[in-house]
């Protein structure tokens, strides 16, 4: 557009097309493309996050205080919420990562019906967490599908209370199943992209040197997947600290977790300071886990400099 607006005389005077202008435009282009996302994230993510941080250190009157953290520690069920959040996390993450890894490797193989499997596995990607919780609730509730089937088969006389408030094992199993079902396809997609990025020559070389399939997986694929696994684990662990909809749908108030506590302080008890304090605790825990993964799964730079 600007080329046509430019006076021909000016161009002649310069003696050549304007390299400086073109250079500038090219330099600016990426920024222009990034700007909407940056503005969006700043306005709707960074700014509210900063405000949340401030609110956590403020009293209702707006003065600086650390009391909110003490109040959070004294809150009924605070310890239970921390314990449950961590318990769910240490169960969900290893289970879903292992399954996703197997699925991704299977999806790479030349098995018959591989594509169909891939489509079916991807379905949960489109399901929201609350919807996933409600689906599994209809299975596990005392008059749900599972109890009906077990009763029809005469395996039980009365419905089993999988989701009873005092059945910690049942509640945790149901939540872990629902969460793993919902998010393992996401982990699988990430790992699959990682596997596809590994040059096939490496695998072929190992094979020609006499390595079996198992050995090639352990010695070649898995070490080269480390950066990908790191991404998947960071992503999933931070979201597992925020586990919310599935817990709310399956357990209600029977299994307190941090994110549900934070939400209740906003919507039910209308104390924004304590809600923000819970949110900050979740942020700190997620950040710590991220740093942990970055240190534990550190990949030497040489790996990338082939």
């Amino acid at each position, binding site marked *: 557009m600007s080329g046509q607006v430019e006076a021909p005389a000016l161009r002649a005077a310069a003696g050549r097309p304007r390299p400086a202008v073109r250079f500038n435009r090219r330099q600016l282009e990426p920024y222009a493309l990034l700007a909407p996302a940056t503005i969006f994230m700043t306005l709707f993510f960074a700014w509210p996050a900063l405000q949340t941080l401030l609110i956590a250190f403020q009293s*209702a009157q707006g003065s600086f205080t650390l009391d909110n953290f003490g109040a959070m520690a004294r809150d*009924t*069920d605070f310890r239970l919420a921390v314990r449950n959040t961590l318990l769910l996390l240490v169960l969900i993450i290893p289970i879903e990562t292992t399954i996703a890894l197997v699925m991704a490797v299977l999806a790479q193989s030349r098995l018959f019906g591989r594509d169909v499997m891939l489509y079916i596995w991807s379905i949960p990607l489109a399901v929201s967490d609350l919807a996933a919780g409600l689906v599994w*609730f209809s299975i596990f*509730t*005392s*008059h749900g599908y599972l109890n009906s089937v077990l009763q029809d088969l005469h395996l039980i*006389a*009365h*419905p089993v*209370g999988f*989701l*009873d*408030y*005092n*059945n910690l094992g049942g509640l945790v199993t149901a939540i872990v199943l629902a969460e793993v079902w919902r998010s393992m396809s996401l982990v699988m997609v990430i790992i699959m992209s990682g596997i596809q990025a590994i040059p096939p020559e490496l695998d072929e070389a190992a094979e020609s040197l006499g390595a079996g399939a198992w050995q090639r997986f352990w010695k070649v694929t898995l070490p080269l997947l480390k950066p990908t696994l790191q991404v998947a684990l960071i992503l999933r662990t931070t979201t597992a600290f925020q586990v919310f909809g599935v817990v*709310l749908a*399956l*357990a*209600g*108030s*029977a299994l307190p977790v941090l994110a*549900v506590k934070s*939400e*209740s302080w906003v*919507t*039910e*008890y*209308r*104390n924004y300071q304590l809600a923000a304090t819970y949110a900050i605790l979740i942020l700190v825990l997620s950040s710590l886990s991220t740093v942990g993964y970055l240190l534990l799964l550190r990949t030497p730079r040489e790996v990338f400099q082939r």
Partner: protein
Amino acid sequence: MSARPLLVSLAALLTFACGGTPAPTGGATPTAQANVGKVEFLSSQGQAVNEAEGMRKQVLAGFNGTPDFNTSLTGGQMVPKLLAEHQASKVDVDLVGDVHGDMVPLQSAGALQDLTPLLQRLAKDRKFNPQLVAYGKLGTQKQYYIPWLQATYMMVVNKKALQYLPKGADVNSLTYDQLAQWGENIQKATGEKKIGIPAATGSRGGLLNRFVQGYLYPSYTGGEVSGFKSPGAVQAWQLMKRLWAVTNPQSTNYGFMQEPLQSGEVWVAWDHQARLIDALKNLPDQFQAVPAPSGPKGLGYMSVVAGLAIPVGAPNQKGAEALIDYLTRPDNQKKTTAVVGFFPVLTDVSVSGSDAPPGVGAEAGAAGKQTNAKKALPALLPVGLGAKDGEFNKAYFDTFTRIVLHNEDIQTVLSDEAKQLQSLLDTAKAPCWPPDPPSTGTCQVR
């Protein structure tokens, strides 16, 4: 902001294009009165899609003006919006329809108009329930809201459960002891725990705290707050533990009891009438509405009142007053009742006859028995707590969690939570409200 005028014109155009004559619409009905124009009506009631639609088509359609019935905000979201508009002196809401508890912070911020002259005018040709009119004064001499709708909490029972009633017990005048005994009998006979209480939390929003505040505590201590750690309260919590032992252990996941009632997981449930009505509407032969049980001090029950208020600086004052007049006319009260499942606020409008809307009639019968019980003890929703209202509810919920779910010592928990309650009452400087005896100054937990 409103899509309604556009929709109305579109509908009219379509009818015309199809060869018909335009149907008379709400705003276009010619009457002797002048059209009052657009009225922005912000309501926390009638939020379900079918209810909002029913309000627009069945109730508001006959109004000589263009009411914009806006239910996009819950009560909790409406209050900050209205306060912000009031502070900025930029009000765009003409009429507020909300529950009593939400009117309190609005009135204390000076955001509501004095409607005493309007009430006097309206009272000439309709009989408002005087108790509800008194609520609308919010503890002052002025009328800050005109009663619009009322509701209460009660029990709905599956008729299959009636055979297990304790000997000599009348389902329409149970005591809490008999209720627990009933649950025990049901469990003995069926092997299942069939009592249900809405004890879910968070967005699932069970109303267990209202059960404790408005039913259990008044029935055992005669009040809601002052006897929080009294011997009567200890007795109440002992009963609650006994009841919980025969309550469906999934109750911590119940928000609206009409769902587990209809699925058969629960046979006897307590809840807000609007959260029970689907069971009565869908399976009227299977379910029956009954009054809440009573305790040693009487039959504690709680009423919910929704009122109509006009914000200070409302753009269409005349329109808002005309809409209040319209909504509190007997015929429109009856229509509204059918749409939202609440009760009317006029003493001469009955919803218990043969022409009562499905479910509402049955609930009105049970509510009547509750109100007219010999030892009826009406409890008010918490008054004067302002922003601390939510945390006040939490104290009751926490008490339940610790005593019943975690099996902590009753007296210890009551002492702990009483301190919490007192600190909330002190912060809000809230005097006692009925059924607690009046206090001089801030209400004290004894």
